[in-house]
Structure formats: C-alpha cells, structure tokens
C-alpha cells in the first residue's frame, strides 16, 4: 500500500459516513462564526425549529462590517450596525462564545482563531469565508463554506463534501532579502493561475517552508484560495507547537503532551503520491506587485505593464485589456512609475505582528509622501496591544499613518474604510478584484514592506532600495 498524504490522513479521521458516488459526511471540529455569512444560517435553524448541535465547537466575532475608528466614534453605518447586533443576538440565543468589538480578544476571524488556540493541528475547521484556508498553516483541514453549509454545521456539526485531489508545492531555495512569503504566493499564482488549484488541496513543503514563522505560513495558506484551491496546508512542527503552547483554548498539562504526540505524526508519508506536484524555486524571486484585477495579473516590481496585443491567447488578452482599462494603466509603463493615492496595511493576509514589524522597519525615520493617505489596521486587538507594547504604533504615527482598531477594514468594501472612485491603493490584502476595495477603486497587492515603501515614495517601489 502506498503512503498517504497529510490531507488524506486528517480527512479519513473525520469521515462520519460514505455516500454513493464517493462523497463523505465530514465531521467539523471547529466553526468560526462571523456576521456576514451567519444571519441566513441562523434563520434556517429558526425556520426549521432546530437546535444548534454543539455550541461549544463555535466561536463568534464581527469583523467585516465593523468600523476601525471606534473610541469616541459612533457606529455610523446603520446597516452594518444592524448586522453586528444581529450576530450578537443570534450567538446569545444559541450560547456561542462571542468576542465583542471593543474587547481585547476582538479581531478578524482568521487572526483570532489561531491566537486563541481555537485552531489546532489535525482538526477540521470551517467558516463562511473563503480565507479560512489560512488555518491550514497549523496542519489542519480548513476551508471556506457557503451560508447553507454553515446551517448544516450548526444543525449537524457535519457537512457533505467530496474529497479533493492533492497537490504538493515544494518551495525551495529560501527567501532573498526584501522578498517575503507574500511575494512567493503572488508569484506562484501568477504562474499557475487563479484556476490552477481548483479541485486540489495544496500542501506546502520544502526547505523554504520549514524556516517560516507561523505568521508567514498563515499568509501563504491564506492566499491559497486565490490560486483556486480551498485548502492550503503545512505539516505541523516545533514552530507550530511553540506558537500554540499556552494559548487560552490550547490543551494543557498532560493533555498537551498527548496532543503534541499525536500532532507529531501528522505528515505526509515518504512514499505518499500526490495527484500533482510542482517545485518552485524561491531563491531568485523579486518583490511582486499585482497590476490587474485578478491576483494572477502580477509581476516583479522591476517589470512593466504588459501589452495585451502581444498575448497570443485571445481570452487572456481580452481579460488583460479589460483589467488595464479598469486600472487606468497603459502597456509598457514601468510598474515602479505608478503613483498611489492610498496605502492599506492590514487584513487576514498581512495584519499580524510580524507584518506590522516589517512595515515599521521600512517606515522608521521616514515620512509618508504628501499625496498619500495611509492606514495601518492590526488584524486583532491582541496584535494591536502587542504592537503598541513595542512602540510600533509610534513609528506608524510619526511617519504619517493612521493607526486603527482591528477589523477587515479596507480589504473588503463593506465598512467605513474604502477607496473612492478612481483611487489607487497599495494594499497588503488578498484580492484586487474590480470594486473590491470600493466602487471604482484600484488595488495593487503586495507585501507589507512593499506597501510601506509605496507609502514613503508615493508610487509602487522596490523596497530593496530602502533597506
């Protein structure tokens, strides 16, 4: 018998029943609940007079719709306020632990899951949000689901799923100075396309991975959905265990020892066969920026805006033409000549302490360009508190950044932080879709240090020149 992959091992441990045709009924160990995808799922319970089966396996937080200027500011958007209040009412009705907006445990679901120790290796974890892939960094099967599937988890603690094919992405060669895991994943998506991972669960392996912090692994798994794959994973190791030890919901004492012993076996067998395997050399990568309206439309900062007339594939050429029209860009323009109006540092992709440190290292002793408005939004209250303890907020504020409270903020245009029509933003978020940061807004995706460099120079810039 050939070996099994990490994904297959965890999957098999969670199968409750088999269906004809190969689907499984999968047990869900963890469900993160937020305000956007839950109201209709709670309504389903009400309409069908069903209880929520295991409230103890859920935690809830409002992140998408909350304002990030809170102290001394009213909740201005009536619709957003109502959505957050609805979440609170629903979780009280069903007895789910809730992290309120002004508390010290508030944050983006994908930041607080790991931070609280709710996310653990070997578990299955879901959330009505596609960036749930983030949690796979801990060696669990974590994926985004729709609202109907949220209702299934509420009522049954299971969902019917088809097992994915498996893909291993070997990242080798380490990271050059000024290059981060965000550049790695953007370059990977540019290579395999936003459809490249559809149907696969991706496991990241290779020498570059083993040296990555948990924060960096989360960034990598987070963006996996932008390659079309719902699941990104990294096998747990000492880095994982060190991160989790002592978190509020992590196991303790003898239970901790038992858990670590079990988690230490969570890896793909030597002779495991993946349905697809690719190797990606990270040693020669440059910092990346997106120039279009899909994450695969990305290139090295030393490059130029591509010319659709030189693209042979008609479908691709037409998509590039449309993207450039929306982005207001001309073929041949050097990427580092593109001016920006706004800078956003934050999100479930890059709103963690390490990200803020990296940006602050570039900003220290420098000023945001006069033409630029820049905000830094910690991914959680805990990140904000830790950043303030080491004085990072002073670096951001002295440079001319606004320093905000936790939330999804300008990653998604459904709260007060958004782009105006035609504004161009250097952003550490995950999606550059049309209108994603606000109607008519133009997004360039990049790493935190690249966003800091853009803030200082007022244009897309190669951060290596500032290091």
């Amino acid at each position, binding site marked *: 018998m050939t070996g099994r992959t990490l994904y297959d091992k965890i999957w098999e441990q969670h199968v409750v029943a088999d269906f*004809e045709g190969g689907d499984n009924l999968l047990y869900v160990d963890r469900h993160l609940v937020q305000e956007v995808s839950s109201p209709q799922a709670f309504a*389903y319970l009400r309409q069908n007079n069903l209880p929520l089966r295991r409230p103890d396996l859920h935690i809830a937080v409002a992140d998408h719709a909350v304002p990030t200027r809170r102290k001394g500011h009213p909740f201005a958007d009536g619709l957003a306020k109502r959505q957050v209040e609805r979440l609170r009412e629903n979780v009280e009705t069903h007895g789910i*632990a809730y992290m309120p907006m002004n508390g010290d445990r508030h944050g983006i679901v994908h930041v607080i899951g790991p931070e609280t120790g709710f996310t653990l290796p070997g578990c299955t974890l879901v959330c009505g949000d*596609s960036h749930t892939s983030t949690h796979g960094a801990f060696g669990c099967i974590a994926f985004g689901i729709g609202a109907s599937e949220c209702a299934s988890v509420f009522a049954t603690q299971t969902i019917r799923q088809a097992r994915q094919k498996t893909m291993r992405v070997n990242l080798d060669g380490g990271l050059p100075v000024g290059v981060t895991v965000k550049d790695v994943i953007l370059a990977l998506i540019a290579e395999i396309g936003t459809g490249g991972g559809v149907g696969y669960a991706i496991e990241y392996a290779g020498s570059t991975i083993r040296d990555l912090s948990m924060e960096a692994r989360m960034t990598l798994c987070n963006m996996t959905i932008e390659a079309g794959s719902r699941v990104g994973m990294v096998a747990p190791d000492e880095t994982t265990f060190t991160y989790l030890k002592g978190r*509020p919901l992590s196991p303790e004492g003898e239970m901790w020892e038992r858990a670590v012993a079990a988690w230490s076996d969570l890896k793909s067998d030597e002779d495991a066969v993946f349905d697809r395997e690719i190797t990606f050399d990270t040693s020669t990568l440059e910092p990346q920026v997106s120039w279009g309206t899909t994450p695969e439309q990305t290139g090295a900062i030393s490059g130029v805006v591509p010319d659709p007339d030189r693209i042979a594939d008609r479908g691709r050429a037409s998509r590039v033409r449309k993207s450039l029209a929306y982005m207001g860009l001309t073929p041949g323009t050097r990427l580092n000549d593109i001016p920006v109006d706004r800078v956003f540092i934050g999100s479930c992709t890059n709103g963690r302490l390490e990200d803020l440190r990296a940006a602050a290292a570039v900003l220290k002793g420098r000023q945001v360009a006069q033409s630029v408005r820049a905000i830094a939004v910690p991914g959680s209250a805990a990140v904000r508190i830790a950043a303030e303890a080491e004085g990072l907020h002073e670096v951001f504020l002295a440079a001319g950044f606004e320093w905000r409270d936790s939330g999804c903020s300008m990653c998604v245009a459904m709260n007060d932080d958004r782009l105006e029509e035609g504004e161009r933003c250097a952003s550490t978020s995950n*999606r550059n879709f*049309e209108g994603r940061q606000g109607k008519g807004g133009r997004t360039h995706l990049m790493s935190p240090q690249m966003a800091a460099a853009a803030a200082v120079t007022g244009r897309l810039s190669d951060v290596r020149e500032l290091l």
Partner: protein
Amino acid sequence: MEKFTRITSIAAPLLENAIDTDIIFPARFLLLLDREGLGKYAFNEWRGEGFVLDTPPYDTAQILVTGENFGTGSSREQAVWTLADKGIRCVVARSFGEIFYSNCFKNGVLPVRLTGADMDAVEAAAEAQEPLTVDLEDRCIRLPDGRTIAFDIADHHRRALLAGLDEVGTILADHAESIARHEERRRASAPWLDLPQAKLDALAEESA
C-alpha cells in the same frame, strides 16, 4: 428549495473569464440580512446600457453563458442568491470557482461545465438568441438545430436538484446516530478537541 428538471430559455452570453464574486455581488450589499430580493444587485457595477442582462431579449434569460472560472473568489452565497432571484436557473461555463459551484446546488441553480466544441456551440446559440433546453433528467442541453450536448454532473447533485432536497434535513434523518458515534470516538482518540465550557466562558469574559 425550488426543483430543477427542465428549462427552455434563450441564454445570455457574458463571455469573459474569471468573473469573480465581487463582480457578481459587490461586497457592500453583503450588509443586507435577508436573502430575498437580491436580484436587483446582480452585477451591480456593470449594469445599465450595453450590459447583456439589461439588453432585450436577454433581460429575461434564465440561462447565463460565461467563460472560465466563473464565481472565483469569496464564499458568499449571495452570488448564487442574486442570480436565482434575477431568474437565472442555469449557468453554463468553461469552469467554476469551487465554493460558488457547490453553493449553486443548495439553491436550485444548475451549474454546467462545458469545453471545446460543445461550449462553442452553446456560445453561438446564445449569441444568435436561439432558445436552449437544459434537461437535467437526461443530463443534456438541446440546441434548436436538433443537436444534443451531454454534460457531467454528480449523481447526488442531480438528485438534489430534481427533488429540491434539503440536505440538512436528510443528514439529520439518516445520520444522527453515526454523528453521535463519531463524537464518542473523537472523545477517546482526541479529547483535546472538546473545549471545556469554562475556558470558552473565560475567553468571552476576558473579551468583554
């Protein structure tokens, strides 16, 4: 859920690749709490003169024909609700975003994957404003010139749409015991996955 057996309609051609969920249903409308009446926000930023779904006769089309990776991006089920509310019952594409694809089956919308000459024929019929018949029982699309194009669909997806099945109800009816047994097994093999209520309460309290 509304059943799907067979529909006949002209098909609106929206022949672009990677139309994402933020285009189908812009994020700011996610603040709405109800799933009814969302059709008016479909493709909001693209609507108006020149947009295919605002151009008769396509404004009443029940079939949408589009390119690769339709529905890529977020998990928002609103992307399906908005299409269904607008009267779109079937989306024919070269490929789909995964979460969008699975959300369709929960809402009486049939996603059909076609490629090559089959897709070319459907695109041509859509552009010629010819009515197509999508027959889920026979798993095929019939063109007015008599050609029949077969499509693949998982058996249980087909059955769920044909019967308008509620998946949650079915799981509770058929698998309640297996779920309880799994929880027993889990308690023995991975007891750390059960979270003590005291820890959860402490976390919520610490937050307040």
